[in-house]
């Protein structure tokens, strides 16, 4: 019997010939990523009492959750991280203005390679399965253990394989596909599992779109998620817990919307009804990449953001920001009435740069719509594709792109 991608990678990293689901292995870590919570990791690391991290070249720290510092407290956190990075000789440090959102920065600077075991103190670390890495989120204390020992225990996950055939209709994107899947499987539908995506629809997707699938797999509980790469593949006779076949042409007739307050509360757009929006957000580790800004610019070009709606656009990284500027997307978006925020997590985590008041409604290309996620506990977040966010900004209500483009 062959092995799945998760099994292959964990076998290699733990020095085993083969591993099987539910087996506990201790795997060597190839890459350990943290953002602002590196400060919490640093404190735990100091409490352990070891002087030096196991390998400074395998640690990457990227400031993104509160950039630039929104408070004196955060400024002190950033400062403590800078001092720690210097003290430990951690060269892969992306400070304010040098990087952007951690998952985008990690990817675009080539830190992740197929077959690696990557851990990050961020739940959306699953994103890096788009590059063939076994990439999982962990907590801060656990990361302090990784900084100490360079290895970590894992229970080998069973794998759900999702095969997507057919084609994506016009205006339907990877975001719609993964929201549909989360709606079908539920918020715990892939708990503790590895998810392997494959099939002609996936293979036709850009890397950016594949990152959306791996990123949002976390919202159905996945430990890791993969899209196909050339360098490493599951064995043809690998054993799967479940194989799910989706005909995208059939399943995705309409854009998908995750309604408040869970990501699995997914409905096709026409079933959402008339929902006026106060704010539209285009950004995040899920959907702040160049192709997302491009489609928004295409829809918003020559049109205006509705007077009752504010549109906030956040390029996922400095590099994307610059490229979007060169290509004219930012000018188009600004002329339409968008506000461009600096690369970072921005309002997605409810800290700054676009917080919602009580009673307000937001359509967002981000990844979570939990109670109070982007501000008041009495606000509402609807998750959608970048195209639907752009169209809704123009319509002033949740809208299909066809409603605003003749």
């Amino acid at each position, binding site marked *: 019997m062959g092995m799945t991608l998760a099994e292959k990678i964990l076998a290699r990293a733990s020095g085993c010939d083969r591993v099987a689901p539910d087996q506990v292995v201790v795997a060597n870590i190839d890459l350990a990523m943290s953002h602002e919570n590196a400060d919490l990791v640093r404190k735990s690391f100091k409490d352990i009492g070891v002087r030096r991290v196991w390998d400074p070249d395998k640690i990457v720290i990227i400031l993104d959750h509160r950039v630039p510092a929104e408070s004196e407290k955060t400024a002190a956190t950033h400062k403590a991280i800078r001092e720690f990075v210097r003290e430990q000789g951690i060269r892969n440090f992306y400070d304010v203005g040098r990087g952007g959102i951690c998952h985008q920065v990690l990817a675009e600077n080539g830190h992740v390679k197929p077959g690696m075991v990557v851990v990050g103190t961020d739940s959306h670390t699953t994103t890096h399965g788009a590059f063939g890495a076994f990439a999982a989120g962990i907590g801060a204390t656990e990361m302090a253990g990784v900084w100490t020992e360079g290895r970590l225990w894992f229970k080998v996950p069973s794998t759900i394989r999702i095969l997507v055939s057919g084609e994506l209709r016009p205006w339907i994107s990877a975001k719609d596909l993964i929201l549909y899947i989360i709606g079908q499987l539920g918020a715990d539908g892939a708990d503790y599992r590895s998810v392997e995506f494959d099939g002609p629809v996936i293979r036709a997707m850009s890397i950016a779109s594949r990152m959306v699938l791996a990123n949002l797999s976390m919202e159905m509980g996945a430990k890791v998620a993969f899209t196909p790469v050339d360098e490493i593949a599951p064995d043809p006779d690998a054993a799967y817990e479940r194989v799910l076949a989706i005909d995208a042409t059939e399943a995705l007739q309409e854009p998908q919307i995750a309604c408040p307050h*869970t990501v699995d509360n997914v409905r096709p757009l026409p079933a959402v009804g008339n929902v006026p929006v106060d704010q539209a957000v285009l950004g995040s580790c899920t959907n702040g990449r160049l192709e997302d800004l491009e489609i928004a610019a295409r829809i918003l070009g020559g049109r205006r953001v509705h007077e009752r709606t504010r549109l906030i656009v956040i390029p996922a990284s400095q590099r994307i920001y610059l490229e979007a500027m060169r290509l004219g997307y930012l000018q188009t978006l600004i002329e339409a009435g968008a506000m461009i925020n600096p690369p970072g997590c921005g309002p997605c*985590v409810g800290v700054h740069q676009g917080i919602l008041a009580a009673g307000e409604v937001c359509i967002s290309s981000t990844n979570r719509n939990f*109670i109070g996620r982007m501000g008041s*506990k009495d606000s509402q977040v609807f998750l959608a594709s970048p195209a639907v966010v752009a169209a809704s900004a123009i319509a002033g209500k949740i809208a299909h792109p066809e409603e605003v483009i003749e």
Partner: protein
Amino acid sequence: MKLRGRVAVKLGDNIDTDIIYPGRYLNITDREKTPEHLFELAYPDIRTRLKPGDIIVAGKNFGCGSSREQATAAVKFAGVGAVVAVSFARIFYRNSINLGLPLVTSREAPAQLEEGDEIEIDLTGGSVRKLPGGAVLAAAPLDARAVELLNAGGLIPYLRKKYA
């Protein structure tokens, strides 16, 4: 490994980390201060009702969402003795073992328990029992690694002992 406590609150499915500990307070890195914001947005009354050793009961997928360790810290340092749920999200589960907060996975117990019940939990044997003299409800026994870390008081003391 047994513990006793009162069921202080019973919650539903998919209690996410933003409900447990809102993202806006993530710049608090002093673990002892995190309980001030426990369930602050959705259920602000819970933290005022919690007494040391109390038990939280919940449905499936407790702790889903973010990797934020403050969610675990806020529950633990509020004095909660254990969380009993149908299932836990994986990062929350690992965080809890690492910080020394016992989690009990039980398919049947949450449905049988009500707020105010006094219960006894056998972490290693894998059971939950209503006191006095209630039926034994099956739970997943903690694995050896989790027991080792809980006995050590969490991952930090465990590693400190190993490397100091």
